[in-house]
């Protein structure tokens, strides 16, 4: 099985590549990047004409929720990975807040086996920090790491106890993994449905203050610093968090942070009208937070772009705002939203943005991939940066239809997703297989 991607603009930040080039793939591995005019196109070579397109390492989502096991009505590994493929992702890291919580070797093995059998893209399991993510006792992190957990997180909720978090950082570091922290002070955020500010006052919804996040970001930084362990902050959403991470990185703390598309594309003003597809945790923040996130990305304080893809059923979301669950189904719109907010505004270069969706998350968690280095797995995404599309639910792959972007016309869409040399998505359509 051979594949030739011809004539695209190849951007491979890890190797400092940004040029018109061809990529030659054989047996699921990248064989060559360069000029293919010498290669005689044999019958067996499938050729993809990428002229005028962007050819980049397969996108890696460091943060998504696939819901299986237990939440199959919201999403399955099949539907979630198909959504990923449609969004240009070749690998996703699955958060462990399933039912049961993925807090043991069994959970990791299940996820790997299901992903192997049914997944359209690679799935990297994230194990829970504490048993049942209840925040009380450490889960079997060494065991989980040994069988393939790529990181540990109780995402969906914070680890309320500082002593437990300190132990978790130390233990995770021992097994060579990073803690991913969902930063939220549970008491300050209690009963909150949206960002605390003007709009929460207008709409009469209980607010989640920025401080609820920032207190925990500060705590994680101080704990990571004292333990000497790495920590990754999930879904950074406030200006204060950006500032805390900036200061910590300046003094050498091993802290990284990720940003989600909705925190760049939307603000709390979008909650007016009580559309529950805007209910997300952390909540859509104020305009100044959005600007601070962009500035943080521009300055390299925040280095990873994630989706926090959080699918829910239509019934769960068709409720009073207070009672609806938090989350946005984000895999299928992430790239064009990032393009709109980061490239079209001149905030990042294409090279920088690609790095934040490929090599940066891969390096942070020690994953294969994220590059087009010869000899590495052939995970490649092709983007048509000129393509304009209006978001509809037609062709939508995720079971979670909770997207606030329906009707938005966005530019720059993934048009092919190649995982291990196999084309899983082409021309916006999933390849049946």
């Amino acid at each position, binding site marked *: 099985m051979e594949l030739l991607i011809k004539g695209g603009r190849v951007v491979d930040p890890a190797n400092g590549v940004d040029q018109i080039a061809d990529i030659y793939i054989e047996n699921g591995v990248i064989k060559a990047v360069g000029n293919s005019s010498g290669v005689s196109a044999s019958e067996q070579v499938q050729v993809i004409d990428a002229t005028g397109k962007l050819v980049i390492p397969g996108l890696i989502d460091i943060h998504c929720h696939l819901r299986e096991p237990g939440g199959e009505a919201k999403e399955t590994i099949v539907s979630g990975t198909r959504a990923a493929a449609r969004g240009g992702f070749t690998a996703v890291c699955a958060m462990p807040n399933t039912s049961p919580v993925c807090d043991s070797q069994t959970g990791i093995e299940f996820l790997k086996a299901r992903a192997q059998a049914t997944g359209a893209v690679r799935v990297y399991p994230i194990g829970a920090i504490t048993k049942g993510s209840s925040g009380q006792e450490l889960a079997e992190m060494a065991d989980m790491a040994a069988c393939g957990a790529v990181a540990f997180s109780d995402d969906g909720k914070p680890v309320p106890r500082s002593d437990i978090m300190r132990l978790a950082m130390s233990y995770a570091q021992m097994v060579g993994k990073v803690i991913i922290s969902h930063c939220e002070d549970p008491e300050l955020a209690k009963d909150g449905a949206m960002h605390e500010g003007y709009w929460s*006052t*207008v709409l*009469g*919804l209980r607010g989640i203050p920025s401080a609820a996040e920032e207190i925990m970001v500060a705590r994680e930084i101080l704990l990571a610093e004292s333990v000497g362990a790495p920590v990754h902050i999930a879904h950074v959403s406030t200006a204060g968090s950006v500032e805390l991470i900036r200061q910590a990185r300046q003094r050498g703390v091993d802290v990284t942070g990720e940003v989600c598309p909705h925190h760049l594309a939307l603000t709390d003003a979008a909650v007016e009208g*009580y559309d529950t597809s805007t209910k997300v945790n952390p909540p859509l923040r104020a305009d100044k937070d959005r600007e601070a996130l962009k500035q943080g990305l521009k300055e390299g304080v925040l280095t990873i772009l994630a989706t926090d893809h959080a699918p829910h059923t239509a019934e769960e979301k068709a*409720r*009073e705002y*207070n009672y609806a669950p938090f989350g946005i189904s984000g895999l299928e719109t992430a790239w064009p939203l990032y393009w709109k907010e980061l490239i079209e505004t001149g905030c990042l270069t294409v090279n920088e943005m690609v790095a934040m969706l490929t090599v940066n998350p891969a390096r942070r968690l020690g994953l294969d991939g994220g590059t087009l280095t010869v000899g590495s797995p052939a995970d490649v995404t092709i983007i048509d940066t000129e393509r304009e599309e209006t978001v509809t639910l037609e062709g939508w792959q995720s079971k979670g239809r909770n997207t606030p972007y329906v009707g938005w016309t966005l530019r720059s869409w993934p048009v092919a997703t190649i995982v291990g040399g196999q084309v899983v998505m082409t021309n916006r359509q999933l390849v049946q297989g």
Partner: protein
Amino acid sequence: MSWRHKDLLGLRGLEKKDIELILDTAAPMKDIIGRDIKKVPTMRGKSVVCLFYEASTRTRTSFELAGKYMSADTVNIAASSSSVVKGESLIDTGKTIDAMGTDIIIIRHGASGAPHLLAKHVKARVVNAGDGAHEHPTQALLDMFTIRERKGTLQGLTVTILGDIFHSRVARSNIWGLRTMGADVRVCGPSTLLPPDIAELGVKAYTRIDEALEGADVVNVLRLQLERQQKGLFPTIREYARTFGLNQERLKRCKEDVLVLHPGPMNRGVEIADDVADADFAAIEEQVTNGVAVRMAILYLMGGTSSGIAH
């Protein structure tokens, strides 16, 4: 001049002429309440459902009587006795009521935005009778009607809203309505009961009651939910009464012809002193009568067919 909205979900966004139309229509309605025969045939054959997810005697009775005085058929659904406890969603409940041929649904709900959700899914017109901490438009309209009746106008008046602004839908609706009608609005309460960025709603926020009352034409005293104290929002009921309770002494800072309002039910001796509540310058019972009149006006204005109305 005519009512061009399908629903009445809040006062935010309504224009001055919308509010004036309701207040102007309420005046002749009030006369009907004073007659021996308190009934007009206007809404014969129209059905009004009061869908109340929160206990309320006063507002529900007011809407129910308003409907009956207008000759509409009114039905009450209380959350505790309905399918709500069986877990039926608001949308399904709404569609069921809709399918029975209901013309107007009056909804009271603990969750902010619930009336908006309902309105999106039913053909019936929806009137918000209070949702969470969001809005209570008919209460604010009756407050404004009462003020206008006593003062002749709302334009240029200084109105102080006193109490738990944070949790109050009455305060929010009053703020929007009064601002639209050209009044100056002050809010006053303990800092822990003032919502964030409240000044951005176009009001002045005070934590000292004497300053908030200085020169006020109207004081609207909100009911203090006593259970807020247990949540730690203020230290004691005693301290609240001493610091923020409205009494005769404090009222001296207001204009001489000050008007005192309270949406009820009152905690006498907590947010309002006995001799204030019962004084001539208080219009608390009058508010109740005006509430029926304002709701009759709203039912009347919404009583037409909904075809050709902007949703």
